[in-house]
């Protein structure tokens, strides 16, 4: 326990975090590429087509759509947790994490909306329906964009961090509320059974789970890369960054 606590504290040090993530990153990228390659192979070539609904090849969209939709939500929750850590324990690095998750999360949300929409056209005959899931996903996109917009509207970084952290927390309280109210509201008028949990055949499971794992790692890699940039940006004046930068510059000139 004490050890975990100390590690947590060490993560609060920009230098330590930068070095550690630098060590992890190649591994994460490696695993991401492998998993995505395998997953895409399975999902695009090796998996069977969906016969029942007569969707044909469009079912392959699922292998992108489902992970993206899952990550969009996980991303926001992670953001809110980091925001709480930042506000309660006054840990500056947590704000850098919050800030780094936002663009990747927004991108995943957009991807889920986009793939869902493209999928919806052949299956439902419309690009957009005000279905509960789709709608709450749209609102989630607005929450992400609001966060990004708020952060970008401050010139003072520490203010931007704190204000947008409060927004992230308020937003996360609202996500379940939004989800349930949208669901309740929608079923009043019509119900779509497409997104209900059905038994997924094993030949769909393997590629789906591989893609899920791959996309999670991809998400982590994107966040970490962004986080490293953020760390450098926030510590421009400190000595280790100067040293790192000049060392890097030397490497470049040597090449």
């Amino acid at each position, binding site marked *: 326990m004490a050890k975990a606590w100390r590690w947590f504290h060490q993560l609060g040090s920009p230098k330590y975090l930068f070095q550690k993530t630098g060590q992890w990153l190649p591994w994460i990228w490696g695993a991401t590429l492998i998993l995505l390659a395998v997953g895409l192979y399975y999902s695009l070539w090796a998996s069977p087509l969906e016969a029942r609904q007569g969707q044909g090849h469009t079912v392959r969209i699922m292998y992108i759509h489902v992970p993206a939709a899952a990550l969009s939500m996980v991303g926001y929750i992670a953001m809110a947790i980091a925001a709480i850590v930042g506000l309660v324990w006054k840990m500056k690095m947590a704000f850098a994490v919050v800030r780094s998750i936002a663009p990747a999360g927004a991108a995943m949300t957009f991807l889920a909306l986009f793939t869902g929409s493209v999928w919806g056209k052949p299956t439902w005959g419309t690009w957009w329906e005000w279905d509960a899931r789709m709608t709450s996903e749209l609102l989630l996109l607005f929450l992400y964009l609001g966060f990004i917009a708020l952060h970008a509207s401050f*010139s*003072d*970084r520490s203010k931007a961090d704190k204000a947008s952290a409060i927004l992230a927390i308020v937003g996360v309280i609202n996500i379940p509320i939004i989800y349930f109210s949208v669901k309740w509201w929608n079923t009043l008028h019509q119900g779509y059974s497409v997104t209900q949990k059905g038994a997924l055949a094993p030949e769909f499971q393997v590629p789906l789970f591989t893609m899920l794992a791959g996309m999670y790692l991809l998400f982590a890699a994107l966040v970490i890369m962004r986080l490293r940039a953020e760390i450098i940006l926030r510590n*421009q*004046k400190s000595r280790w960054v100067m040293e790192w930068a000049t060392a890097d510059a030397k490497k470049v000139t040597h090449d």
Partner: protein
Amino acid sequence: MPSLSSMSQSQDIQFDGLYAHELTVSRSENVLLEDAELHLAPATITYLYGENGTGKTSLMRCLTGLLQPDDGKIYWNKKPINHPESGYFQDLIFLAHSLSMKNELTIAENLTFYAQLRCGGSYNNKELQADISQVLTDLGIGGLEGRMFAELSAGQQHKVALARLMLEPAKIWILDEPFVNLDQKTRGWLAAKTLEFKAQGGVVLFTSHHHIDELPVDQKVGVEHE
């Protein structure tokens, strides 16, 4: 930072008045003050000087708790200023660059609001209105009580802000460039009132880029940058 050690420290503080300990202040990554110590004793007037942009305003905002310092503690009568028992915010009047008056209200309404906010209902309204008239007359803008704040000249607006000093009881004044825009007569008035306040044990911290002959100071603190 373990909270225990800072508690014990707070008992060590021996200084009455305002005391800032190891204060570090930065603004958008520039460190303005590092490990600064500042002691404003009761019944003293302190003059804060320094060239433009050295951090006088930033320091004042830290001392009023509006700006979070990067590090350091600030005590009022031996208690951290945020401590409920310090009573700091009851004792403090801070006049900043922005005059904090509402354009849509009249002079009297603006002043009444701040006085009531500080004193609650204890300030009898009739008395308060009489006091306001009195102060405004002293300031040379008597009779303008009912004028909208927006319709005053720059100096007149400033005078209204200064009137607060006379209407609200306080033990410490922090004044950011209080002499700006004022004519000679009003400067003299403010200097005299400041000396009176000091004589009653008040603590005063002010900045000014001009030397004010009428106001002898007890302590000069310079903010110099790099």
